[in-house]
């Protein structure tokens, strides 16, 4: 069925505060085929933004490009006013970006504690801060277990703890609900908001599950074929309209 939703003039919902994460005209490609066709996104300090879209629309590519795993072909990415477009991943982490990838990608042969400690690299700290374990008590219980032997939900917590260990200003989560049971998804929504409230960091989360996005996000963007086609604040979101974008 042909989508006849007219591309609305982008509503002026960009917050007035200077952006913590500013993306301008971002293009990215796998080899010759371009996947992102010029994205402009601004995320305010302390804001949670959900990027929604179906499979293959460019959500993960956006995350990888922001993280420097995939090079941007043009456009700029700035964190807290610093341009990071040309930097390697580890230098972006030092600038305040942290990443929880799709599939979690924890280091499975390393212990839980060692996994978190890898996140400390850019801070120079030697010990895992107490507040991380306080946030995820289950990780303290399992700190000497190998990461690979944790359940999916526990691995997700570990991946978030590892990302937070670098004291980020902007946290990127790529499909955090994938493969996680519903009760844990709700729990995770609460945790993310608690993290934001406690640390004042900005969060960009890519999602396919609308209820989760509605639960955590202050603002929802819809990405389709590598471009933002819809944007609205949570307060005045038209759920039916967003759901239409997500239906296959």
């Amino acid at each position, binding site marked *: 069925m042909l989508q006849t939703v007219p591309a609305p003039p982008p509503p002026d919902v960009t917050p007035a505060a200077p952006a913590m994460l500013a993306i301008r005209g971002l293009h990215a490609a796998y080899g010759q085929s371009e996947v992102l066709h010029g994205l402009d996104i601004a995320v305010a300090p302390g804001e949670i933004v959900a990027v929604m879209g179906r499979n293959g629309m460019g959500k993960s590519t956006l995350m990888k490009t922001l993280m420097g795993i995939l090079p941007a072909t043009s456009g700029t990415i700035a964190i807290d006013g610093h341009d990071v477009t040309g930097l390697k991943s*580890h230098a972006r982490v030092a600038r305040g970006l942290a990443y929880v990838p799709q599939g979690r990608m924890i280091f499975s042969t*390393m212990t839980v504690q060692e996994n978190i400690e890898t996140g400390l690299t850019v801070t120079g700290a030697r010990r895992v801060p107490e507040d991380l374990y306080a946030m995820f008590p289950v990780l303290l219980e399992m700190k000497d277990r190998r990461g690979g032997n944790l359940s999916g939900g526990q691995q997700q917590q570990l991946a978030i703890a590892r990302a937070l260990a670098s004291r980020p200003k902007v946290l990127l989560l790529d499909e955090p609900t994938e493969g996680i049971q519903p009760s844990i998804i709700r729990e995770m929504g609460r945790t993310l908001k608690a993290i934001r409230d406690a640390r004042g960091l900005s969060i960009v989360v890519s999602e396919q599950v609308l209820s989760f996005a509605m639960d955590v996000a202050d603002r929802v963007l819809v990405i389709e074929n590598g471009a933002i086609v819809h944007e609205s604040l949570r307060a005045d979101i038209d759920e039916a309209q967003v759901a239409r974008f997500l239906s296959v």
Partner: protein
Amino acid sequence: MFGDYSLGDLGAIFAMQGFAGLILFSVYLLMALGLAIIFGQMGVINMAHGEFMILGAYVTYLCSTFFQSYLPSLFPIYFFVAMGLAFLASGALGMLVEWGLIRFLYKRPLDTLLATWGLSLILQQAYRSIFGAREVGVELPAWLIGSVQVTDTIEVPINGLFVMAVTLLITGAVALLIFRSRFGQQMRAVMANRAMAGAVGIDTDKVDRTTFGLGCGIAGVAGSAFTMIGSTGPTSGQLYIVDTFLIVVFGGAASLVGTIASAFSISQTQSTLEFFLSGSMAKVLTLLAVVGILMLRPQGLFTLKVRR
């Protein structure tokens, strides 16, 4: 083949060949450690690893002649200095090679094979031009010469004991480095998932360079130890590289315990068989056994059991 020997003789032969095997084991283990670290982390098969070892051997040779002519009073301890210098020289060359050659080829594993093979030829010719084609031997200080008489028929050489002690020390240090230090943690993270290691803030380029230098440095120490059991020539490294590959594959890549176990079993088998058969038959039998075991266990002797 045992017919001509009495039971007591056989016991003594096994003990002494077993000990000779232990010295071989030491050199193999040090070589394989470096090769396994580099292969495990970067997926680079370093064909020039033998030449890094020989660089260590030549450094030891230079030290030996230098101390003999200029510092004869310190000659008894020159070997410790030589080992340190061998580590530094091979390690520095390794880091230079990683920076100038290998890092451009990480996405092309077959090309690294060719490139490092070419490097090994270049290094061999360099050694030939600098040190001459003749093999050189080092002068051992007096305290390393001789042997300990254990029983009437069994005696063990002191330099062998020394080499083994050094090997144990280095293996222990490497294990500590990999499993206890912050750098080792970063190494293991890069080994597990390079892109993700970068995304948690680890400078993967720096870790790669240091790892390559470390692996080559350990090969240099192996070369230093090697001077005690063989003479050093431009192509001596070639004799060891194949066996070392065999050990790394047999042990299961990226497993420290596996590398130790496989270096031990291969060197012991070879050394014991060599006494009763010819050297090449010993090699053939060892190879056949390894091939047989690898057909049953393609992943090598030891692997970690963990959900991926």
